[in-house]
């Protein structure tokens, strides 16, 4: 079904401009996420990382460039949409891009299973028993099958995030977007969510991740971009090299801020 010659996700010359802003939030962003690869976006706060994910998910219209999925253009930039709410993307296209948010945004009026099965039965019109079977299998994978009839408020933040990942996965998205999914979690719950993401990476799920967890980014990333002020500062197809030997001075400086944090937290000597 998917053409392996084409990159899974392709963003070309993307421009995001809000009304009443003198310069664009994202300016001429281009990158490709190959099939089965994990693409990580890092950068300081306010660099436009989250906005970039939101444009790819269709939550924000774009004013220039294109977004393509497996060679098919799903979004074209149109000037004049600066103050519009969301893009006009169709429901069917939206299910092809999954997204997990920072806030625990499960539907509180549905059980864990109800959260996961809502969209496939309602939007994709899939058979209910088949969908439930798959939902249980997904919950098994994230270690929450015993919580399938629980309500979201009965779960911890980390458990909710894992359910949110299942809810996105059941639609079989071609790309899965993660927007700082561990930023609002207690430290001891970060690990369980990141482990699920590492497992997905091993299974070949194409992912685009925005994160502040540099060690995690280094562990999971195939490719990296550093974003600042709405532009790409450094792009690397070799994530390991980016984290050990960044090409630009700005990237070195950015990565150093995290090393300093780590030094203070653990007391370990750093940098060899």
């Amino acid at each position: 079904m998917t053409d392996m010659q084409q990159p899974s996700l392709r963003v070309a010359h993307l421009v995001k401009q809000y009304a009443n802003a003198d310069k664009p939030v994202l300016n001429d962003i281009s990158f490709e996420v190959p099939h089965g690869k994990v693409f990580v976006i890092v950068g300081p706060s306010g660099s436009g990382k989250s906005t970039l994910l939101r444009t790819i998910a269709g939550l924000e219209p774009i004013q220039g460039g294109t977004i393509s999925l497996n060679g098919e253009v799903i979004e074209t930039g149109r000037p004049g949409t600066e103050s519009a709410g969301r893009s006009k993307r169709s429901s069917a296209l939206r299910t092809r891009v999954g997204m997990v948010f920072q806030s625990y945004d499960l539907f509180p009026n549905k059980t864990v299973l109800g959260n996961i099965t809502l969209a496939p039965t309602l939007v994709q019109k899939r058979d209910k028993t088949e969908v439930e079977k798959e939902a249980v299998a997904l919950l098994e994978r994230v270690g929450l099958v015993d919580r399938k009839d629980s309500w979201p408020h009965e779960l911890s933040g980390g458990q909710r995030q894992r359910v949110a990942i299942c809810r996105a996965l059941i639609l079989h998205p071609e790309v899965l977007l993660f927007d700082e999914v561990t930023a609002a979690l207690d430290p001891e719950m970060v690990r369980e969510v990141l482990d699920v993401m590492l497992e997905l990476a091993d299974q070949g799920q194409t992912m685009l991740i925005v994160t502040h967890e540099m060690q995690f980014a280094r562990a999971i990333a195939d490719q990296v971009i550093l974003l600042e002020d709405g532009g790409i500062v450094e792009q690397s197809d070799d994530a390991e090299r980016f984290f050990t030997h960044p090409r630009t001075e700005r990237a070195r400086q950015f990565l150093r801020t995290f090393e300093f944090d780590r030094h203070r937290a653990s007391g370990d000597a750093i940098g060899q």
Partner: protein
Amino acid sequence: MNGAEILLQPGVFPRLLQGLWVTVWIAGVSVALSVPVGLIVGWLMTMRNPVIRLLTRVYLDFIRIMPQLALLFIAFYGFARAWNWNLDATGACVFVFVLWGGAELGDLVRGALESISNAQYESAYVLGLGPWQTFTRVILPQALRRLLPASVNLATRIVKTTSLAVLLGVVEVIKVGQQIIDANRFQYPTGTLWIYGVIFFMYFIVCWPLSIVARRLEKRWSHD
């Protein structure tokens, strides 16, 4: 003679129950009609159109500032006479209570709808749900949960406020009580306390279950 015996007089209890029925009827019809009015008013209040916002705001504030009794007098002695409406006292009561209940419920509906976080709309959007699917499957069920406890309390207030109908001459439970007391003033001079005691008990029986339901719902849904 013991004042309590007034309650055993033939016809006293059935008449009180008839009066209670009038009270419950006015309250029940008013609450039932307030629900659709409140849902529509609440929905209008969340609209961006400034004219609609202003109109609903004025409506809500007007109803809140005016004492219910003044509204009842305006409806019954004012509007009905001025424009020759064929509005009896009971009709005037229902009219005023629906205006009042609709405004208050509308404000509750508005608050409940606005309290649903944007993240809920966004998750539903990303999952491919359309606007109507999002509203009926995600937003409305949550809004109703947040809305129910407060609306049950509102219903209790409407039940109690029906006692003002006496002043328009509606023969509801309090008026019936007064009539019984007046008729037996010489035979049972101390009967007043007993009659009003029974009426108190009747209001209690109607409102108490509502309070319990409200408290239960509040507890059950406090986590959302």
